[in-house]
């Protein structure tokens, strides 16, 4: 039983950042844009949280500045995609590059070296009353509520339906007085908020450390969870949970089968699960819906 609790704690720890990233992807996906910048905005959130804690010694200031900076970067992404009409996939990769390069640049110019930074404390824990789960951060505790409220927002509110209309049929959205461009801006801002939480949970949830390139594809995995979950908040959260279960099982297998299979090959498991996940989606739906602007890249 204790082992089961440990297993669940490990899944929640590795799954929560993925789920927040997937939520950010979901809301942007429903507004009609592929959010491939998740990875970059997440690492910015992680970096700002840790640097904020180290410099100001206050968790509140750190997380607030992470949220603000992530929202600013999201607005930048929205501006380039929406106003400058750039290709969303390349822009997403560019934002990822800005996240990885920019955080390395910031860390090196503030602290003078690329070594990992560790913070004296992280996100507040939920406390001893929860027994084996007491080491989890508050953000893990908030996560189900975040999923639920995003579900309400996207599928049970006027705003959510307009947002979906802006993504699927911009003309229809405009005819009821919703400006698709503004809807996308709001979606990107909410996405920035969730990315900041994802990054904060990843860096300050259990480790309290920021290392170069620590996101390691989790943002892209969160994006794949959006596709696997069909753009539905709850489905995508479960898809993200599935990827994290696979990675935790991989880590467990290292303990039991570490002598037979290489440690590095077991680390591949979540990535392989991601490929399998979107393959299953494609088989179920006929095909995954490609980004709408894919052929526009040629027209320059």
């Amino acid at each position, binding site marked *: 039983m204790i082992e089961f609790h440990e297993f669940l704690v490990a899944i929640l720890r590795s799954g929560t950042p993925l789920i927040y990233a997937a939520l950010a992807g979901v809301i942007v996906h429903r507004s*009609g844009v*592929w959010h*491939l910048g998740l990875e970059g905005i997440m690492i910015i959130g992680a970096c700002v949280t840790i640097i904020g804690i180290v410099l100001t010694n206050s968790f509140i200031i750190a997380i607030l500045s992470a949220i603000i900076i992530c929202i600013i970067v999201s607005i930048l992404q929205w501006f*380039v995609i929406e*106003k*400058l*009409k*750039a290709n969303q*996939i*390349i*822009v997403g*990769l*560019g*934002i*990822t*590059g*800005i996240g*990885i*390069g*920019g955080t*390395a*640049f*910031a860390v*090196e*110019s503030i602290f003078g070296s*690329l070594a990992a930074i560790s913070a004296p404390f992280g996100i507040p824990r939920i406390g001893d009353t929860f027994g084996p789960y007491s080491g989890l951060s508050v953000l893990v505790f908030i996560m189900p509520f975040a999923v639920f409220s995003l579900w309400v927002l996207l599928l049970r509110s006027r705003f959510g339906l307009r947002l979906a209309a802006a993504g699927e049929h*911009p*003309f229809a959205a*405009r005819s009821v007085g919703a400006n*698709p*461009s503004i809807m996308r801006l709001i979606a990107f801002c909410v996405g920035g908020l969730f990315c900041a939480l994802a990054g904060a949970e990843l860096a300050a949830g259990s480790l309290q450390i920021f290392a170069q390139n620590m996101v390691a*594809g989790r943002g*892209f995995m969160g*994006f*794949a969870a959006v*596709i696997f979950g069909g753009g539905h908040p709850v489905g995508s959260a479960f898809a993200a949970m599935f990827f994290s279960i696979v990675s935790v099982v991989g880590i467990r297998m290292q303990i039991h089968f570490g002598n037979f299979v*290489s440690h*590095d*090959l077991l*680390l*591949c498991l979540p*990535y*392989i699960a*991601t*490929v399998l996940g*979107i*393959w299953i*989606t*494609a*088989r179920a739906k*006929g*095909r*995954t819906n490609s980004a709408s602007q*894919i*052929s*526009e*890249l*040629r*027209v*320059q």
Partner: protein
Amino acid sequence: MNEKIEIIIRPLAFILLATILCGIIFEIAGFSAILMFNSILDGAFLGSRSLEKSLRWALPLFITAVGVGISFRCGFFNIGAQGQFYMGSVCAVYVTEYMSGVNAVIVIPLGMIAGMTGGALWSLWPGYLKIRYGVDEVITTLMSNFIAGLILVYVTSGPLKDQSGSGQQASTKILPSELRISDASGVSLTIILITIGVGITGWLLVNRTSFGTLSSLAGRNPTMLKYQGGKIWQLGLASFIISGMLAGLSGSIELFGPSGRVVSGFLPTHGFTAILVALVASYAVIGTAFSALFFGGLFSAALFLPIFTGLPTSAIDLFNAIIALLITARITLGTNFLRNRWSHPHD
């Protein structure tokens, strides 16, 4: 405006814009932007022997970027160049391991063929999933990069680990000097000839064959091509294979040439930069040569930045990323910006 001039001016304008943005960021961070750009220019192109150092990075970038361009031109976002590059070098290093003692004239071509095969196979599975099942290639190729990176770590720290290594970075054994086609400077007649060969073949393929014409049609308007009886799956699969082959080739050149061994996680930004090179050149082969030289120069300057200006190497990554952010923007020098104010996007 004349279309040909615009193809040249557009990327230059965006690179200039990115330079200005970067300069502002560096000034805010407390570095001297002017000093930095001076030292980039000096380190990349103007200083003594700096052109040779830039070529060392530009040649493999060019080979990979020609492949990336061929697949983008066909409308397939094969962003797995990094993984295909790694798999190419891994396959080539296995050939040298199993054929140790055999004449170099046999081993080197075989190693390169193995590298090309490895890269092609590594790009084939996302291509197959895309064409057979419609699985989006953006995610599969991204994931294939991470998997290839881990396979590289496994190979360099497991079966082919150099036991005498310092343990800092896992790597394979350094190849004996007769198996090297260049010294550490990375510029030799063999590599230049291979690169020119790839350039000429790529140019002929894109501009003088039916494959080139059809694949650029497939990228622009797949529906039309489908109704005219074109087989998009053939073009797509071929473009995936070619881009994988070229990325794998540059992986094996990296092994036989400048590196002489395979290090875990080497050249981590090669694939991303190659995508950028192809985008800046708008997939034209001749343009790719120039933009590869530009980004190769940036890369070689990046290595000297910390010494001369105190700027971290990551400054160049940031610069590249800002170029990537802007390069596909479709405002054409003023006129369209006004027009867009009155038209509604996404209809």
